[in-house]
């Protein structure tokens, strides 16, 4: 069966003055099945947000897709659709939510009306029916007193409540894929837990696929089906969640795990990765992680390691040393 979303050789470039164009997303390929929750993990500047934005055609001005890049949704390549055709996909098939819901909500419009707009944008629905659906959506995302809350303005709501409103808007046209870019990063931990539970419930009840973009490996455990780890514009490792956590192969993934402060481990010194993520105008040749890597050999500094399976066919890692291919 073909996957719901199939991203092939995604390359995003930006013109960079007279210098060579920047390539913040470089040769990224992955697929998502219907109803699957896939996490895209990496630190800031790794290209994960641009990867997410490119799927519903929301890349910023000036960004260009590579000539061989394809984004197939249900078998149709949507990478080069006109803006008008893309808008159809965005509403009905693919929805996206962001870290800061305030930036996407209209401050002078009642939230119920905004959800109503999302419903009527793609289909003719009678007014009374719109109101009924708005209240049903608000209830579905766990908002008590849906009728009352529908009349609120965004500024009257807490951060967690606003994120629920954004999710309700995203659900309005019953998308098959929801892209959630750091949806809980700005929220308190107890509210973060609520929103993650909600996303998980919706995925199951609606059989909706979710691409969860996050810097936090901790929220991925026990929730995602698969994890993609991005570093400096490329996917360096991907695997089903359990094998990735039990046996990370790429030294960057291992470094991330060692860096995370854990509540259930002894207190004291952590084992960080040295240095920081390089900027797209200073990406090292060969393996882009090599300047921060304790495993590196001569080859890593010149040749880019391919993303190929090591032990399990569904668990590739782009590392010469992990692949045992250092000659």
């Amino acid at each position, binding site marked *: 069966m073909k996957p719901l979303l199939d991203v092939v050789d995604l390359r995003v470039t930006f013109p960079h003055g007279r210098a060579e164009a920047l390539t913040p997303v470089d040769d990224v390929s992955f697929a998502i099945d219907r109803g699957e929750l896939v996490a895209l993990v990496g630190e800031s500047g790794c290209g994960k947000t641009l990867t997410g934005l490119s799927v519903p055609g929301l890349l910023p001005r000036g960004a260009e897709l590579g000539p061989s890049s394809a984004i197939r949704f249900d078998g149709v390549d949507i990478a080069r659709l006109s803006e008008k055709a893309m808008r159809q996909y965005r509403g009905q098939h693919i929805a996206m939510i962001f870290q800061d819901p305030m930036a996407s909500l209209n401050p002078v419009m009642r939230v119920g009306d905004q959800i109503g707009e999302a419903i009527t944008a793609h289909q003719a629905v009678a007014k009374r029916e719109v109101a009924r659906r708005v209240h049903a959506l608000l209830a579905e995302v766990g908002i008590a007193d849906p009728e009352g809350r529908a009349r609120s303005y965004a500024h009257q709501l807490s951060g967690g*409540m606003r994120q629920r409103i954004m999710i309700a808007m995203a659900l309005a046209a019953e998308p098959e894929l929801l892209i959630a870019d750091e949806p809980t990063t700005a929220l308190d931990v*107890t509210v973060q*837990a609520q929103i993650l539970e909600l996303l998980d419930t919706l995925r199951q009840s609606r059989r909706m696929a979710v691409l969860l973009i996050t810097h936090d490996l901790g929220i991925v455990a026990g929730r995602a089906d698969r994890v993609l780890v991005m570093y400096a514009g490329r996917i360096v490792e991907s695997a089903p969640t359990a094998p990735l956590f039990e046996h990370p192969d790429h030294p960057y993934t291992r470094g991330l795990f060692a860096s995370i402060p854990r509540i*259930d481990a002894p207190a004291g010194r952590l084992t960080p990765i040295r240095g920081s993520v390089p900027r797209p105008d200073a990406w090292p040749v060969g393996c882009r992680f090599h300047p921060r890597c304790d495993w590196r050999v001569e080859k890593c500094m010149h040749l880019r390691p391919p993303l190929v399976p090591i032990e399990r066919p569904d668990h590739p890692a782009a590392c010469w040393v992990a692949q045992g291919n250092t000659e």
Partner: protein
Amino acid sequence: MSPLVEVQDLVKHYQAGGFLSRNAPPVRAVDGVSFVIEAGETLGLVGESGSGKSTVGRNILRLETPTRGVVKFEGVDLASLSPRDLRSTRRRMQIVFQDPFGSLNPRRTVGASVGEGLEIHALVPRSEIGARVAELLEEVGLDPDYATRFPHEFSGGQRQRIGIARALAVEPRFVVCDEPVSALDVSVQAQVINLLLDLRERRNLAYLFIAHDLAVVRQLAHRIAVMYLGTIVEIGDARTVIDAPRHPYTQALVSAVPSPDPGATRNRIVLAGEPPSPAAPPPGCPFEPRCFHPLKDDRCRVERPGLRRVAAQDVACHYAEVVAADMTTTAPT
């Protein structure tokens, strides 16, 4: 001997401004907080946004004037000091912020920012400031040559190191760290946590480490205080508070910390609702509206529980003898 820092019943209320809201109830940001910090000790202050944890830090340093309460440093009540004595005492109490960029002057070189305190307090002869700044930059893991560069040239982690060097320049005994690593990527966050640990050891520093992330606090704190809606609901030895919390809120907070371990089947308590507004706190226990304790009753709705010794820590809950999380597998939503 008196403790290095002693906070007694600290209260900070903010009156909403404007003549239309003059009769509005005050925002009770901090509503009676007490604790001590010994020399070389780290107290972790944990809470969600709006819990009042940053306000506590700012009021201890008298960057704001408390509404009520006493803050003693080295045994001396800060409110009793003349402005001049307060200035010299403040040298020994410093602060490191979440956003180091906001506290560094973009038009001054890193060297000038780090050396500013040395100059103001005349700690070293003018001719030696450059050499001292170089030493400080090295101590926080930066190249001494960075002194001639400007803040915008640095990454978030490097800026935080600059902010730490600036705080250390005046040789403090006590540093308030207000969410110092929460804006940093995980790999860099771990570097800065290690740096703070090393500096504490080398200089016998005391920290008030304010953060929303319990796992981060766990790495540094000897003791932990958990704040909710302007009050401390639980305080004790760090291991006790995390491994055997007695307040239902602490239990929920511990269970909400994401664990990078898919095998971990910890009891996940998902709290219903969000914290109430500090302008209209519940009359009884501040946590009562969200509490899932099976013994919760009318007493919780009317009588605010004070901190009292239960097991090995102090807890503000009428029913802390019964561990709520053991009795409920999932919290009602």
